[in-house]
């Protein structure tokens, strides 16, 4: 019995294509489930921050709520606005979703669990996060609606501006780690919580999280939706399954940014207690996928925390913050991180 399973297993491993597809499924399925429960988590967290209960009717503690939402959305009619561009209207959500999932290809879950261990991983991530905005722009234009179009314009300007700050924040990481391979970036941060890059690159760490908020169009930077001004922004005309896909893309992007923050600035799968006396010798001192997931969840929680805490920015202030505050700070800190490397203040892998 065991031999048969083993031989089947070996055969699958020898078939490169099938093996890769299996790996993709193993990454994507938990991701979609995580998105479903992230919406539940969001409603519970924001509920308790606003002294409410949150969803508690469907299933124990309301845990089945996300599935109820999904089925409701899937069974609803997709309304096509008059004179909308049918083809682009339907493709836009898919264009928004694809990069959010594709970027996970280079994310290392631990030292060996990674779909594609490529050298230009950081660049690949930057390229894919910059593609997500197409879904929003095309949705806004194809809807043939002025609110949707206004939302799309805002999203486009915002994404292009904050991409620069985000890119520069990652350049700092790149200089310290000396590699664009995400696995090597994590390995360069070895040595406990004070060796991770959030400490030497603290301003870049903060700026990366702020730009991440702006890139994913989340509060307080959710100008693309801005329901108090432009109804629901770019997806105002979307309903049913098409809306669900936009929703999926937004939350998948938030999880992705959280995971990337964990990798770039918080040591990925490495343990914070590495090399500490007593606790460093137990299993807590070992790097594992659990640490990576825990860090990702912490950053995911922060996304919700921001939303419950801050009111929406005014649009001109968003632009001012991006161009006149964040980008100059990143420029200075990139130079400083180069100095830190040259002077040997931050030595990689120590």
């Amino acid at each position, binding site marked *: 019995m065991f031999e048969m399973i083993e031989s089947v297993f070996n055969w699958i491993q020898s078939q490169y294509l099938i093996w890769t597809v299996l790996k993709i499924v193993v990454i994507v399925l938990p991701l979609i489930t995580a998105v479903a429960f992230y919406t539940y988590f969001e409603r519970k967290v924001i509920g308790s921050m606003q002294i409410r209960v949150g969803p508690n009717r469907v299933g124990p503690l309301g845990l089945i709520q996300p599935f109820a939402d999904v089925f409701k959305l899937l069974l609803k009619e997709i309304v096509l606005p008059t004179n909308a561009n049918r083809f682009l209207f339907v493709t836009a959500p898919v264009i928004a979703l694809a990069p959010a999932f594709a970027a996970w290809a280079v994310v290392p879950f631990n030292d060996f669990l990674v779909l594609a261990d490529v050298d230009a991983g950081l660049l690949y991530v930057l*390229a894919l996060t910059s593609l997500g*905005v197409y879904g929003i722009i095309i949705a806004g234009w194809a809807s043939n609606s002025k609110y949707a179009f206004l939302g799309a*314009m805002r999203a486009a300007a915002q994404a292009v501006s904050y991409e620069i700050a985000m890119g520069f924040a990652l350049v700092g990481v790149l200089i310290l780690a000396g590699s664009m391979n995400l696995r090597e970036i994590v390995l360069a941060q070895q040595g406990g919580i004070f060796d991770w890059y959030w400490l030497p690159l603290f301003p870049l760490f903060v700026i990366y999280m702020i730009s991440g908020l702006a890139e994913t169009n989340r509060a307080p930077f959710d100008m693309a939706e801005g329901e108090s001004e432009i109804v629901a922004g770019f997806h105002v005309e979307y309903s049913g399954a098409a809306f669900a896909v936009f929703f999926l893309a937004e939350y998948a992007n938030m999880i992705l940014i959280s995971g990337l923050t964990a990798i770039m600035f918080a040591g990925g799968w490495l343990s914070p207690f590495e090399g500490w006396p007593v606790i460093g010798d137990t299993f807590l001192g070992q790097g594992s996928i659990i640490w990576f997931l825990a860090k990702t969840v912490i950053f995911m929680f922060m996304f919700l925390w921001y939303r419950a805490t801050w009111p929406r920015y005014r649009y001109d202030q968003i632009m001012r913050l991006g161009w006149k505050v964040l980008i100059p700070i990143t420029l200075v800190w990139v130079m400083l991180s180069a100095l830190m490397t040259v002077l040997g203040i931050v030595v990689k892998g120590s």
Partner: protein
Amino acid sequence: MIVQELIFYAFSLVMVFAAVAVITVRNPVYAVLFLVLAFFSAAAIWMLLEAEFLAIILVVVYVGAVMVLFLFVVMMLDINLVPLKEGFIRYLPVAAIVAVAMAIELLMVLWSRGRFGVDMFPVPPPHSADYSNTRELGELLYSNYLLPFEVAGVVLLVAIIAAVALTLRTRPGIKVQNPSVQVRTRRDASVRLVKMKSEKPRGA
């Protein structure tokens, strides 16, 4: 090898189709989207050439930033297609001359390296797994080509300043917000708390 060739032909076909569509489709927004598709396919083909840095930078810079702004502008324009197509016959001879000149230039470059054929362009040896395209490019740019690189940087800076200077105009009589003053504002500047005795309701 056969897989690589299949990928190459697939992306080449898509690219040629997209490039033709850019100039033939009637809707300018479609034209921009086809241009994006062409860039993307070109990036994929560069990837096959093991030029992963250039390929991804093409996507980051052109697809991710330049084309977004392009789309931004084209969507806002109210383009009437009829007057655009009016002078087609009149400009055809000039366009034909320019096209022929460009074709001849391309051919001359190819000719100077010998005739066409696979044997004229041997397959470059594949690089080892630890070969880093990015590192190689960086080392060349910051050593051999440092001066041209710096000059290009200065030229771009001049272009940025020129663009800002051309569009920046100060109009008199416009109220502008000063965010740093707004942030520094104190409660006392706008709110005055008045202490007063509580009034008795009338008739009590």
